[in-house]
């Protein structure tokens, strides 16, 4: 632990956020700007007969109306899928086009058909209602499993049976054999329901084409401005990189939904060039519900096989994963490489087989949402574990203890090779669970539960011991699996003449606190103060080509790039210091902000060296001036955080309401830079995961209408739904990155959902309820309790 590293330093960015002085995309304005509103389909599936824009165009203040036909005439393709997952038989993945606006048929409620640009946003909004689209409404398909059946509505003409690919991982024969010889088999079928991300800031764009410089600028709500520039430049609009600048200023939450390059933002850039004026577009909340990529939407059958002693002998799952109506950038890898590869959990399961069919449906596109694939995998495994323990009459912690992978540090002991392609870096799962049991005081929890039950109250305890793969990702590995991008990151460190430091980070912060943690790391490395370090991110013309923030990767990947630059600064600094101290760099050690000749009190400070580098009067002959280094870091492996979450609930017998009364999270994310920020990430993640378990879920009718597309109907979890979360940690360092860190952004979401549902099932154990579908609404719980003759 350094002076700053490991300390709960208050987040420096919160100063502006708490005061409401953050600067978000919609806060930026340009001279002569116009305002765009998209005209969106009210139907889930319909043929467009005609689009009449005349009334809108005639309205005072309307600058221009573009339609899907204009996009088709311009020959623009639209956003792309960034990951190719082919069929089992080798056939290429189906990749239907996803135009910026559609001309022929709409495929989900919210599909854009026209764009109205006006002098002000009020006029644009009014004029959008005057665009008259004549539709022939077609039958819709919503259910991922029904989508593959003959006779289901066909979302795209060239995607037979709506099937994008089918895919498998693991040894199917060995797994089937394990099931044939099993002593006990536990089975679950469930819908990991479709979730609406609901970041507090809706997506927005401010796009400008400067004809004098032949250059585009896009302010946008992106988690990864360089990725946006790459996709827009190379694929969507064919703009050379040096002619496109993407700025992603403060961003009010993403949770994955702002990773993707959306057509809406691209449309603004294109339109800006057509009309020769800047175009601003800001989604409203209703629009966010039907255009931000949703998460999850897996329909899964999962089974686990055990021998007579409770050892897991096999696991198999079959999943139908909806992509929604189009393939968003990373949609295809979520149910496969981020899901199937995690199916071993942290157990020694000797045979695993995962089967996934990806389908299109007439719903909002689905892509990575906090956890992305790993929550779905964890839900399968951890629900099966608690259910199996109940069925076999075992304590759920004993069942886990029996099956944990033994501790390994990844240095003395090698990494752990799973049956599903991953090699875990380091882990000590049993110690972690024991810590959680101690923090939660499991023995007394059980006594409390049993006493409550004897009094007729329904109290339950649920577990989730989980692992995730994050720090995404080794480029060569993901490339071999179909990724069309590398997943390294980049950062530069500029030491200024007075010894102050600016970090240019490829990772973008939208809630993660990079401006604090990155500064902590660098300040400690140079022995300077937090105030001496500044973090810049989110502008392709100011930061190196990093791949952005998602997959709990910022510290593990971008932080490692930062450390590489730190090392370069220190190496060069040592040579300059050695020159000043008239010794060899090897004679020096760096501590407390100064290079000291070992065994002497002769030293020179960091600031002195920095000044010398920029005023190189007395300077090593063959040394360049300056102290400024950029580095790229491509990780050697994923990182594998893990943890134990314990949830206690009480179910109201009369209403079926579930009250989460206690929640303990003991996470292991390797070395901790800022425990307060780690706690904050866990709190938010757990809240989101409880949200999925109890409250959230997009509800569609058979016509593909989203029935709960507003905050009046879509239940977001709120602070008063939760007890105070109790967090603690174990620290098993990552052996393969310089900071020994593993990532914590998604852990809470991944872990908590099954823990909550397991707790409810434990509370209802006397009611003969086989299973419940999420969200566990009061009515669902109450109905289940009263449908088995248990009223």
């Amino acid at each position, binding site marked *: 632990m350094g002076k700053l590293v490991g300390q709960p330093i208050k987040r420096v960015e919160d100063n502006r956020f708490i005061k409401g002085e953050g600067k978000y995309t919609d806060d930026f304005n340009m001279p002569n700007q116009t305002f765009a509103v998209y005209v969106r389909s009210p139907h889930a599936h319909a043929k467009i007969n005609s689009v009449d824009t005349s009334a809108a165009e005639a309205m005072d203040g309307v600058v221009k109306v573009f339609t899907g036909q204009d996009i088709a005439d311009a020959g623009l393709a639209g956003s792309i899928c960034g990951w190719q997952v082919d069929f089992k038989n080798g056939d290429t993945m189906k990749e239907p086009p996803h135009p910026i606006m559609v001309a022929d048929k709409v495929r989900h409620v919210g599909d854009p058909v026209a764009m109205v640009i006006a002098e002000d*946003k009020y006029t644009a*909004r*009014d004029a959008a209602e005057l665009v008259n689209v004549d539709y022939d409404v077609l039958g819709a398909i919503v259910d991922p499993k029904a989508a593959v059946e003959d006779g289901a509505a066909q979302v795209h003409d060239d995607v037979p049976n709506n099937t994008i690919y089918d895919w498998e991982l693991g040894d199917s024969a060995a797994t089937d054999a394990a099931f044939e010889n099993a002593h006990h088999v536990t089975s679950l079928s469930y819908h990991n329901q479709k979730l609406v991300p609901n970041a507090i800031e809706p997506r927005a764009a401010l796009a400008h084409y400067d004809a004098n410089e032949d250059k585009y600028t896009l302010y946008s709500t992106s988690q990864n401005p360089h990725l946006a520039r790459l996709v827009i430049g190379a694929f969507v609009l064919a703009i050379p990189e040096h002619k496109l600048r993407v700025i992603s200023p403060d961003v009010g939450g993403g949770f994955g939904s702002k990773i993707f390059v959306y057509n809406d933002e691209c449309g603004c850039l294109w339109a800006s060039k057509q009309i020769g004026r800047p175009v601003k577009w800001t989604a409203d909340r209703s629009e966010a519900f039907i255009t931000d990529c949703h998460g999850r939407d897996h329909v899964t059958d999962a089974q686990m096989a055990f021998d007579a002693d409770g050892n897991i002998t096999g696991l198999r799952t079959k999943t139908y994963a909806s992509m929604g109506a189009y393939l968003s950038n990373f949609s295809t890898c979520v149910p496969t490489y981020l899901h199937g590869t995690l199916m071993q959990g942290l157990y020694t399961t000797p045979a695993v087989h995962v089967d996934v069919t990806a389908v299109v449906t007439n719903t909002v596109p689905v892509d990575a949402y906090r956890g992305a694939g790993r929550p779905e995998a964890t839900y399968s495994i951890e629900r099966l574990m608690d259910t199996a323990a109940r069925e076999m009459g075992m304590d759920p912690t004993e069942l886990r203890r029996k099956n944990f992978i033994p501790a390994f540090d990844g240095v003395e002991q090698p990494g752990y090779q799973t049956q599903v392609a991953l090699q875990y870096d380091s882990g000590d799962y049993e110690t972690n669970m024991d810590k959680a049991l101690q923090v939660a005081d499991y023995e007394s929890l059980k006594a409390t539960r049993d006493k409550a039950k004897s009094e007729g109250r329904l109290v339950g305890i649920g577990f989730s011991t989980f692992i995730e793969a994050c720090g995404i990702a080794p480029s060569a590995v993901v490339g071999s699996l179909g990724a069309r991008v590398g997943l390294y990151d980049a950062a530069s460190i500029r030491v200024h003449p007075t010894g102050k430091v600016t970090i240019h980070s490829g990772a973008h912060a939208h809630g993660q606190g990079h401006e604090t943690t990155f500064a902590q790391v660098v300040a400690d490395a140079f022995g300077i103060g937090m105030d001496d370090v500044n973090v810049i991110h989110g502008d392709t013309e100011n930061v190196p080509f990093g791949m952005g923030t998602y997959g709990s990767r910022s510290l593990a990947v971008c932080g490692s790039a930062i450390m590489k630059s730190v090392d370069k600064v220190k190496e060069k600094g040592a040579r300059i210091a050695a020159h000043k101290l008239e010794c060899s760099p090897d004679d020096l050690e760096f501590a407390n902000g100064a290079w000291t000749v070992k065994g002497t009190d002769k030293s020179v400070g960091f600031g002195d060296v920095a000044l010398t580098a920029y005023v190189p009067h007395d300077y090593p002959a063959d040394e360049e001036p300056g102290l400024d280094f950029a580095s790229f870091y491509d990780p050697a492996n994923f990182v594998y955080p893990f943890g134990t979450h314990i949830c206690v609930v009480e179910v109201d017998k009369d*209403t079926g309401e579930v009250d989460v009364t206690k929640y303990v999270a003991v996470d292991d994310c390797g070395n901790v830079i800022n425990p307060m920020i780690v706690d904050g990430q866990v709190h938010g993640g757990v809240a989101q995961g409880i949200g999925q378990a109890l409250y959230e879920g997009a509800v569609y009718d058979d016509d593909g209408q989203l*029935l709960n597309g507003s*905050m*009046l109907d879509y239940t977001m979890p709120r602070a008063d739904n939760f007890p105070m979360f109790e967090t603690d940690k174990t620290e098993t360092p990552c052996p393969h990155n310089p900071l020994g860190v593993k990532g914590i952004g998604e852990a809470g979401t991944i872990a908590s959902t099954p823990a909550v549902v397991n707790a409810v099932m434990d509370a209802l154990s006397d009611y003969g309820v086989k299973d419940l579908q999420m969200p566990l609404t009061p*009515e669902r719980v*109450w*109905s289940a309790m009263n449908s088995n003759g248990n009223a």
Partner: protein
Amino acid sequence: MISYNFDYKVASSMEEAFSMLAEAGDDASFIAGGHSVVPAMKLRLSEPSTLIDISKVPGMSDISQDGDTVTIGGLVTHAEVASSDVVNNACPGLAECAGVIGDPQVRNKGTMGGNVAHADPGSDYPGALVAFGATICLASASGSREVSAEDYFTGLFETAKEDDEMVTAVKVPASSASAYAKFPNPASRYAVVGVGVSLNMNGGSCESASVGVTGAADHAYRASGSESALAGSDLGDDALDAAASAAADGQDMMSDLAASADYRAHLCGVMLKRAVAAAKARA
């Protein structure tokens, strides 16, 4: 979330409000706390041509008590009702009801008059006002009148109020053994079911009871079957069960994402029992 264009006028007296309304024509609307009218405008579900702000109209912002009657002005906010000593003493069930409306922002802005005028089927006040035998005071340019709460709420967003009338106040009879129990919609926090109960106790026995239910049907109603089951009983389990199972009698239960009709009917009974228990404890 941009509304249609509209005019905005501020009335400084009741008379001025009425003349502004008459002048602006059919599509004009009063605005008080704005917490029902503005959300509907933002979603473009309603498009008033003119909003006439009545929040500055004098004489409608007080809570007073005269003998057994508490009068709450049309502009009194939910937060004021919830925290009023007068209301908490005279009719704790009404204060309880106000305290579970929405969230603090809603309670700080939303008004009694607006709530009663809007008559959302999921509004809380209607259930309490019907249960507690309240009277709605209405005024227009041509005079004023009073309507019992039971007769006032007539349908989905429909009331006995004429378009040109203003809710100036509600009068609530004192009822110390009163309570309100609510099952909130998890998303909107409006009432899926809300039950107001007022008991007339004589020692351990209940001489009469009045029960109002909101959220369950398209408008608040009195559950007379429940009232009879409670009246004359000692509020024991049998009476409570009978009252609970009668709480939805004769009513068309609504059905939506938060609750099916059957579950709603069941919740009416559960909330009734909870309200009775709380009211009894206050007797």
